[in-house]
């Protein structure tokens, strides 16, 4: 094996870090010079590769699976920076491998964007995959949600060991029938919680398409009460406190538990899994809280109708100042139609103090049609954030924002508070 591409990749990685540049270039370099690099580094891992994909919740769920496995004593490689394209994985690997391209870890847990995952699994067939949901998002990239389902199906069929599927999402649960080599296990919801988590068909289509509730699930989220949750794991009822915020994160905790159990097999210590889960902090922009003027400011990432709906449902607007920032850059999705698939009635009483982002006026127009009071509209995020913070002195604050709007908000906040800036 020629160690040169790995060395070159490492040098480019250090150089681009020094420049403060993006994370993909070193991945590109090593991909071009040594296309087999990623496959070699990852295929030697004793517990193999876990791929996490789906529309919503990939970042937080991946973080949970990593921490659950680390809590059981495994050494885990992951793509931490949220760079969920193949090249991002290659770049993250370069930081971890030795000069001969070897990775010292027990297992890799990788968050992959649906389209890039299909490319990735051709290079590195995963032993496990965890498929979360298929929701209307980025239709401008993928065309249709049925097309997104087919992408996830290709990840599932490339998986060699176990595919963990969301029983409550008919498109995801249906993937089981296409499996030839892997076995399927499910995570799910108790009947009483189903209406809290509408699947895509239930967004507008009146009654739900009832999933096959008869499918036995390995982990079921059975109750959510404030910041604690109950799960049925393999028929055993357990409960735990959580630092994660938002009901959608808590459902994904069931997903992460099922995935961790698939990897660990009979060796899983359930008490220890729950202790690890209780300690998981939210990933950036997924309901994390930042102190501004001694008051908490929560950042809630919204990128599609179901995420926005669940975000509104999870965070009570009463007593909070609220800002919404909507951008339409490539990573956000250019099409604004999705805002019309979200109900904003719950904000009606408290109103929205500031609306910002490149599509601030699309958002303001949406709120007007739901008769939600608007304090002000300012497309420029820097100016809007300044006005919002000044105008809400003494109150806790919450900002709902799309992906690139969140990056801009964080950059601004980092000037006045302690915030991890992610580029």
């Amino acid at each position, binding site marked *: 094996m020629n160690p040169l591409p790995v060395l070159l990749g490492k040098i480019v990685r250090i150089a681009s870090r020094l420049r403060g540049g993006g994370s993909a270039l070193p991945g590109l370099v090593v991909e071009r010079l040594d296309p087999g690099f990623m496959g070699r580094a990852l295929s030697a891992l004793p517990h193999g590769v876990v791929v996490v994909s789906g529309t919503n919740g990939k970042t937080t769920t991946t973080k949970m699976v990593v921490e659950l496995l680390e809590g059981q004593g495994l050494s885990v490689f992951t793509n931490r920076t949220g760079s969920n394209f193949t090249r991002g994985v290659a770049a993250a690997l370069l930081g971890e491998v030795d000069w001969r391209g070897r990775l010292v870890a027990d297992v890799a847990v990788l968050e992959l964007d649906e389209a890039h995952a299909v490319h990735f699994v051709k290079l590195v067939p995963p032993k496990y995959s965890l498929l979360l949901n298929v929701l209307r998002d980025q239709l401008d990239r993928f065309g249709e949600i*049925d097309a997104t389902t087919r992408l996830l199906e290709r990840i599932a069929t490339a998986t060699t060991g176990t595919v963990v599927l969301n029983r409550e999402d008919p498109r995801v649960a249906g993937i089981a029938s296409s499996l030839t080599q892997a076995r399927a296990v499910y995570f799910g919801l108790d009947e009483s919680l189903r209406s809290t988590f509408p699947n895509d068909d239930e967004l507008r289509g009146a009654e739900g398409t009832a999933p096959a509730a008869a499918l036995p699930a390995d982990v079921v989220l059975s109750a959510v009460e404030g910041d604690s949750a109950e799960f049925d794991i393999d028929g055993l009822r357990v409960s735990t406190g959580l630092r994660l915020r938002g009901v959608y994160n808590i459902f994904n905790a069931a997903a992460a538990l099922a995935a961790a159990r698939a990897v660990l097999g009979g060796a899983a210590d359930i008490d220890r899994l729950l202790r690890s889960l209780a300690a998981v902090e939210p990933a950036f922009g997924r309901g994390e809280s930042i102190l501004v003027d001694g008051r908490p400011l929560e950042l809630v990432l919204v990128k599609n109708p179901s995420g926005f709906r669940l975000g509104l449902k999870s965070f009570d607007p009463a007593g909070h100042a609220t800002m919404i920032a909507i951008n339409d850059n490539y990573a956000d999705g250019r099409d604004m139609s999705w805002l019309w698939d979200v109900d904003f009635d719950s904000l009606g009483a408290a109103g929205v103090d500031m609306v910002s982002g490149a599509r601030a006026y699309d958002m303001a127009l949406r709120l007007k049609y739901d008769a939600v009071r608007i304090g002000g509209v300012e497309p420029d995020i820097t100016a809007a954030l300044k006005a919002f913070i000044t105008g809400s002195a003494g109150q806790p604050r919450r900002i709902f924002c799309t992906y690139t709007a969140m990056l801009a908000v964080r950059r601004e906040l980092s000037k006045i508070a302690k915030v991890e800036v992610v580029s």
Partner: protein
Amino acid sequence: MSDALSAGALSEPAADPSKGSLRILQLYPRDMNIYGDYGNVLVLKQRLAWRGYGAEILEHNVGDSFPSDVDLVVGGGGQDSGQVVIQDDLQSVAPTLRGLAEDGTPMLVICGMYQLFGTVFRTYDGIDIPGINVLDLETRGGSERLIGNVVATSTEFGEVHGYENHSGQTFLGDGVSPLGTVLKGAGNNTEDQYEGARYRNVVASYLHGSLLPKNPAVADFLLRTAAKRKFGSFDDDGLDDSLAELARKHAAERPR
């Protein structure tokens, strides 16, 4: 604020629906609702409410009996699978829809429903799926998906703003006129410059976004037509559309 807004722009007073109510029918909301089509219905309903009219929102889904006394019809886009699901039911209500359109009932059909209102959809593999012949136009499946922001100009409605996402390419026959001509984006197809179609009081378009919020002139055309047919007049008080104006202006400056 970088753009001046009047106080009325951010909120409208709710009015008592004392002037009467319009019956608005949504076609197949369960299977054809993929691109925020609900926004169109919400806009119609609120613009009526702000003017003192009521709205009764009806639905027709597969297997339902078609409601009577419909004043306005709205149909949305669907996935290919949704179009297959509704195909038989749509053919069974086709004579009713043709009758309503010929009679002058205002209708808004977007994307997938626009295609199905034509004579035929010829798929990329050469299979003919019959339309319901409300509009003289046909659609051919294409290999390329036309996606992005669109600005079209129409003699009737001025500039029309929206977002397209379709692979079918639609060609107009002599029996219909285009809704507008594209200034940005593809519109009906990659060959001529037309976007959408107009026939009697039917407005057909590829544009969602949703279409009506940013195009209040189209919304008010549908409402005015329906109200005049039902009540003989329409109390057309100008609403403050400055927020829609600003949304249009900012949308037009965004990349394709």
